[in-house]
C-alpha cells in the first residue's frame, strides 16, 4: 500500500489541502506564492524526524504526527484581546485576523502580514522567514511557510520608540484545527519596541485553555534589530492540553542592538520550541529566556542556537523549567563562536526545578568555539525545592503548600524580573500563577 508512506510524510497536509490554502491567498504577491510552493515541496520531500537524528535526541517521536488535523476553518467570534496590557493589539482566530484594538504612532506599522505583503512587500521579503532552519525542524518549518496564511507585521522606523507593548493574540478553535501563526518584528536603527505574542485555545471565541479540544500549531517569529535597536519579545504559549505545538524563532541582532526574547510555555501536550539567535555585528546582544511549567504528561522540547558572528558580541541564555507529575523537558543548546568573533561573551544555563520524582528533565548544553579570546560559560542543574529555604519560610508560619509556591515563583522571578514593563510582568506572573494552581 504505497499510500501509507505518503500519508505519514504529509498526513493531513495533502496537496489538495495546500491547493485550497493557496486559493485563499491567491491575491498575495507572486514571489510569496512561489516561496510557499517551494516550501510545500520541501515539506513533502523531507522525512519525518528519526530517533537517530541528533536534533531530536530524547524527543518522543511516536506522538509526533501530521495526521488527524485540518487547516483551521472560519469560526464565529472575535476572541478575547485583553489578556495582556498593550497599546494596540491584533487578534487571530484559526489563521484569520478577527479584531484589532488601539493605535500606534504615525510611521510605525502594526498590521496584518497579508496587508504588509501587499503594501510593504520589499520590507517583508527581506525579513520574513529569511533565516535558515538549523535546529532540526526543517520539515515543520517548511510546513509553516507553506500554510502561513496571516500573521502580524510590526515595523518601527529609525529612531522611533514605541513605549507601550503591542500584543498579538493567536488563537485556535475546534478539534484538530491546524494554525500557522507568525509574528514579524523589524526594528530599524535605534528603534525600540516591545511585542507580546499570546497563543491560546478558544471555545466560541472565548479563551478556554483547558476546556478546549486539541490543535496542531506550527508557528514562527522573526525578530530583526537594526543598529542600536532594542527589541523585547515575549511569548506566552497556552494552547489547550491536547495540542501539538511547534514554534520557531529567528533573531538577528545588528551592531549594538539588544534583543530580549522570553518564552513562557504552559500549554500543549507536546511542544517543541526552536530559538536561533545571530549576533551579526559588534556590540550585539541577545537575551534568550524561557520559563516552562510542565505538568501531567506534557513534553516540552527546547532547542537553542546562539551564533556569534562578530567580535564583542554577547548572549545570555537562561531557560528554567518547573516539572511536576510525569512531565518531561528537553533542553539542548549550542553556542557557536565564529573564528573572528573575538571577545565574545556567551552564557547558557538550563535550570530545572524538580517538583515530582516521576518527572524527567534532559539537558544537553554545548559549545563550539573557533575563536581563542572569548568567555563562554554553560551549565545545567536539576534540583528539588531547597529544604532549608522551605524550613525558613515555614518557620515564619507559612503553610508548606504556600511556602513551596513562593519558592517556585521565586525560581521564575529571576526570569520574569527581566521584563521592564511592570504591567506586562504582573499579567504574565498572574497567568502563570493561575496555571500552576491547577
Amino acid at each position, binding site marked *: 500500500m504505497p499510500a501509507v508512506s505518503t500519508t505519514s510524510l504529509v498526513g493531513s497536509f495533502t496537496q489538495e489541502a495546500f491547493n485550497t490554502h493557496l486559493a485563499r491567498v491567491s491575491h498575495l504577491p507572486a514571489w510569496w506564492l512561489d516561496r510557499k510552493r517551494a516550501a510545500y515541496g520541501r515539506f513533502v520531500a523531507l522525512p519525518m524526524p528519526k530517533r537517530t537524528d541528533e536534533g531530536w535526541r530524547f524527543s518522543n517521536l511516536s506522538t509526533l504526527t501530521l495526521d488527524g488535523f485540518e487547516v483551521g476553518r472560519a469560526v464565529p467570534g472575535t476572541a478575547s484581546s485583553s489578556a495582556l496590557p498593550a497599546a494596540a493589539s491584533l487578534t487571530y482566530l484559526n489563521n484569520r485576523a478577527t479584531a484589532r484594538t488601539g493605535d500606534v504612532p504615525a510611521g510605525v506599522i502594526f498590521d496584518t502580514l497579508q496587508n504588509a505583503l501587499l503594501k510593504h512587500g520589499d520590507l517583508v521579503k527581506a525579513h520574513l522567514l529569511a533565516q535558515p532552519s538549523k535546529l532540526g525542524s526543517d520539515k515543520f518549518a517548511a510546513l509553516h511557510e507553506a500554510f502561513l496564511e496571516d500573521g502580524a507585521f510590526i515595523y518601527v522606523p529609525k529612531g522611533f520608540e514605541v513605549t507601550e507593548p503591542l500584543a498579538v493574540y493567536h488563537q485556535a478553535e475546534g478539534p484538530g484545527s491546524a494554525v500557522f501563526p507568525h509574528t514579524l518584528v523589524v526594528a530599524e536603527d535605534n528603534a525600540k519596541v516591545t511585542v507580546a505574542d499570546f497563543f491560546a485555545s478558544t471555545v466560541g471565541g472565548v479563551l478556554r485553555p483547558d476546556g478546549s479540544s486539541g490543535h496542531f500549531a506550527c508557528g514562527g517569529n522573526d525578530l530583526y534589530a537594526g543598529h542600536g535597536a532594542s527589541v523585547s519579545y515575549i511569548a506566552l504559549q497556552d494552547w489547550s492540553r491536547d495540542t501539538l505545538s511547534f514554534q520557531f524563532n529567528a533573531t538577528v541582532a545588528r551592531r549594538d542592538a539588544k534583543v530580549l526574547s522570553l518564552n513562557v510555555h504552559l500549554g500543549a501536550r507536546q511542544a517543541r520550541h526552536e530559538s536561533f539567535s545571530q549576533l551579526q555585528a559588534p556590540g550585539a546582544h541577545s537575551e534568550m529566556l524561557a520559563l516552562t511549567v510542565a505538568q501531567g504528561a506534557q513534553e516540552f522540547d527546547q532547542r537553542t542556537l546562539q551564533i556569534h558572528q562578530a567580535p564583542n558580541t554577547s548572549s545570555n541564555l537562561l531557560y528554567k523549567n518547573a516539572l511536576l507529575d510525569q512531565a518531561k523537558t528537553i533542553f539542548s543548546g549550542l553556542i557557536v563562536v565564529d573564528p573572528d568573533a573575538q571577545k565574545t561573551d556567551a552564557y547558557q544555563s538550563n535550570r530545572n526545578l524538580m517538583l515530582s520524582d516521576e518527572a524527567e528533565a534532559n539537558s544537553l548544553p554545548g559549545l563550539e568555539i573557533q575563536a581563542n579570546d572569548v568567555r563562554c560559560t554553560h551549565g545545567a542543574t536539576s534540583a528539588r525545592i531547597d529544604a532549608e529555604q522551605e*524550613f525558613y519560610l*515555614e*518557620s*515564619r508560619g507559612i503553610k508548606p503548600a504556600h511556602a513551596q509556591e*513562593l*519558592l517556585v*515563583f*521565586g525560581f521564575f522571578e529571576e526570569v520574569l524580573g527581566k521584563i521592564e514593563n511592570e504591567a506586562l510582568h504582573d499579567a504574565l506572573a498572574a497567568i502563570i500563577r493561575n496555571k500552576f494552581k491547577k
Partner: protein
Amino acid sequence: MSQLVIHDLHISIGDKTIVKGFTLTIKQGEVHAIMGPNGTGKSTLAKAIAGHPDYTITSGEVLLDGGSVLAMEPDERARAGLFLAFQYPSEIPGVSIANFLRAAVQARMTEGEELDATGYYKRLYAKMDMLKIDRKFTSRSVNEGFSGGEKKRCEILQMAMLEPKIALMDETDSGLDIDALRIVADGVNAQRKSAAAPGIMLITHYQRLLDYIVPDFVHVMHDGRIVKSGDKSLALELEAKGYDWVKQEFAAANA
C-alpha cells in the same frame, strides 16, 4: 502571660545525641541568655524547638502555654507563637521581603479574612524605620546579597512584624560590627518594652551582645545541658574567667 517550658529535653542528629537533658522555663517579657562554647548544643536546641526536620527530639517535652509543640509542624509552631531568629538566614531568590512577610502575616489570619494592605505597609514601614532598613528593601529578594548586618536586621524586622510569644535568637550578634549590633539591640529592646513583649532565649558566645540587650537570666550550657545559672553578673564573670572555669566546676561537681 505566655510561657515556654522546656523539660529534660534530649535531641539527636542521626544517632548522635547533642542535647542531653535541657530544662528551662521562659516567661513572656523575660530575656534568658544562653551562653557556652561551640558545640554544646545551643543552636541545635533552638532549631529543634522550631521544628527543623534534621533534628530528632528523643525525650523530654516542650510546652507552650501548657500545650506540647512537639507534634506540631514548623509552620504550626510559628503560628502558635514561636519564632526562630536564624544564625544563618536562608537567601530566597525571587521572593521579595514584602511578599514574604505578607504571606507570613496572612498565614495568621482566619480563613476569608482580608489583609488590610494599607495598614500592613504602614506597620512594615514603621518597623523598617525603627531598624534603619531602607524602604527599598521591601522589593528586594529575602536575604539575597544582604550583608551580615542586613540579614540580622531583616530577622529582627520579621520578629517585630510577627510579634511572637517566644523568640529563640540564635547568635544574633555573629557577624555584626558595633553599629549593626547597636541597631539590632535597639530593635530587640523596643520589642521588650512593647505591650506584646516576647520571652526571649538569646543564644550567644559573647558577653558583648549582653551590654546592649541586658538579660534577666544568664545560663551556661555545656555538653548539652545548663550547668550554671545566674543573673547578668554571671556573663561578666564568664568574660573574665572564660568557659574553662565553668567546665572545671562542673567536672568537679560530677566527679
